[in-house]
């Protein structure tokens, strides 16, 4: 019994169905401006929020964590929602970024600021190395191999105590950043917050340009008609590899920041808990609905904090929520907004024309 993947509709999976464009579908330029508006709005709100919050360190901390995961969620969504690459090893890139930066600053005494660059670089390089063999395979094999990579990384980091990963306990404490004699500390979240915001903006910008540039358009072309796109000289392998590298870079960057922000890295980052949180952030925000996944990250971090007292039940709830979301709202919040808008528009289109309105002589 061997696996084969017939392209025709065989009842196991129905073929790719494309929705016909709605009569009142907005032109692309306008759609783009909604995206721009949301990104700009997020940046402005986040930049001004500390003024409104005063010195609530706790809320600030939640916001910093949200921005870290928001960046990762955007990076992951580039692969899942735009490039159609079922990568399940995203947290692996995050851990690699975190470990690189922490190991450089703790074992080699290198300034943590360089760790940001180094973490991003290793994240990107490892992602490309994983991508090189994986991207030649069919989608489902990518999901299998990247999950295996993710699952094996924690044992490897535990075994790797010899090269300075700190084994099971990880590395702690990790030196915080310092600038011109001022050292960042937990008691004042403002510097952390604005640094995180800067990195988050980097992720938003990379995501935005990756989606709206020629580069992002090539994925749309490949999705619509692979052979035609290829005849125009678009190589799926090359663009996929590029976007995997880019995604790994963003994730590694956030990982590096995370290591110094929390002051500890251990194989626990690779825990299932973190993974499922990331999944639900992206699902809730909407896969392929930039910048939805980032908004999903903010919501999940705050809801999770709010559900703190349910402790043991939290993951149970989130697990069930993932199943329900996949079944009922596969495109998340942003997808729901889209379909409501589409329904409203359809209604408007089908409204009977008032008599005499059009037949004026």
């Amino acid at each position, binding site marked *: *019994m*061997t*696996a*084969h993947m*017939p*392209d*025709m509709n*065989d*009842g*196991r*999976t*129905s*073929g*790719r*169905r494309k929705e016909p464009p709605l009569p009142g579908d907005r032109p692309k330029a306008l759609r783009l401006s909604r995206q721009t508006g949301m990104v700009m709005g997020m940046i402005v709100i986040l930049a001004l929020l500390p003024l409104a919050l005063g010195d609530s360190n706790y809320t600030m901390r939640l916001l910093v964590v949200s921005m870290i995961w928001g960046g990762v969620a955007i990076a992951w969504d580039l692969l899942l929602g735009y490039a159609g690459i*079922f990568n399940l090893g995203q947290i692996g890139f995050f851990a690699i970024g975190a470990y690189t930066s922490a190991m450089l600053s703790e074992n080699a005494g290198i300034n943590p600021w360089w760790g940001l660059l180094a973490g991003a670089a290793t994240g990107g390089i490892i992602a490309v190395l994983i991508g090189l*063999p994986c991207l*030649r*395979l*069919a*989608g*489902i*094999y990518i*999901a*299998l*191999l990247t*999950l*295996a990579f993710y*699952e*094996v990384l924690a*044992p*490897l980091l*535990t*075994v790797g105590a010899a090269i300075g990963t700190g084994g099971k306990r990880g590395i702690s404490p990790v030196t915080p950043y310092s600038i011109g004699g001022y050292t960042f500390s937990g008691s004042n979240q403002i510097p952390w917050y604005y640094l995180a915001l800067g990195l988050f903006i980097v992720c938003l910008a990379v995501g935005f340009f990756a989606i709206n540039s020629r580069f992002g358009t090539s994925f749309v072309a490949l999705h619509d008609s692979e052979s035609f796109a290829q005849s125009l000289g678009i190589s799926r392998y090359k663009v996929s590899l590029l976007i995997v590298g880019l995604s790994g870079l963003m994730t590694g960057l956030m990982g590096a920041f995370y290591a110094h922000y929390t002051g500890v890295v251990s194989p626990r980052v690779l825990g*299932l808990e973190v993974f*499922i949180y990331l*999944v*639900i952030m992206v*699902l809730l925000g909407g896969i392929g609905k930039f910048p939805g996944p980032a908004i999903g990250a903010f919501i999940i971090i705050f809801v999770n904090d709010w559900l703190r007292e349910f402790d*043991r*039940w939290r*993951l*149970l709830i*989130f*697990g*069930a*929520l*993932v*199943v329900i*979301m*996949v*079944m009922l709202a*596969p495109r998340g919040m942003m997808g729901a907004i889209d379909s409501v808008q589409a329904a409203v528009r359809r209604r408007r289109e089908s409204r009977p024309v008032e008599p005499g309105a059009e037949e004026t002589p």
Partner: protein
Amino acid sequence: MREFIEVLITGFTIGIVYFLVAVGFTLCYGVGRVLNYAYGSFFTWGAYLAWVIAVGYASLNYFLVFIVVLPIMFLMGLAVDQVIIRPLRSRPEFEFSVLLATLGLAVFLDNLVLVIFGPRTKSLPAFLEGSVKIGGFTISWQLLAMFAFALVVAVVLFVFMAKTRTGMSMRAVAQDPVGARIVGIPLYRVFAITFGISTLLCGAGGILLAPRFFMTPLGGWTFLVKALIIVIAGGLGSIKGTLYASFILGILEAIVGWKLGLLWVMPFWFLVLFVILLVRPAGLFGATARKG
């Protein structure tokens, strides 16, 4: 040398149990195109249900454990297929949706175990005590019982696939779903039965391996990954490939565990997987993993 052969025997036994676990996974994909990421959780559930019956609440005989737990696992599989997988089949991105849904299900099931049984590790006692000497080798009864039971299940599975109508329709669907539907095979029923059988096999593996490893609510993930590696190495959807890969990796596990310690097992498995994929990108007996 004698020790080495004993290790080989252990590896062979682990191999056949891994085969049971992995073949359920590959069957599910080969027939129904379902990659079940909740597979590890079914493993955990099998082990915990066995614990409930044999240790926790009713100290029943081991034999009864199988008779009670396996049908429960089968019904669980049917229910998951009907409630979660079937409604997703009309989706354009069916495989990806199933992947995410089963991932959520896995977290749900694992944490249900955690809420019910608590985070402390549990262990099942061995089925049988003592050991036997065969031709100078010492083999524990436990290992022999494990081997015998796994062998029985594997043989029953092969006969089922080869001789019964249901088994034949499963193979037909795996080969050509359109053709199978034309000759009147009820596709959705076959999908459901396949899913049930796959969770049953996984539960059987859980019961058999529970006395060997400690049980924790998140312990199933290791076995999901092991099943994944075996299945990729053997070729996704191929039963023959799964058989060979299980034995190769089972024996490797025994040798590595004996020489270097269990922590090194996964890195070595990865190395072997990597080498196999370099030579044959679709696994040992896979048709094709490359895209069109």
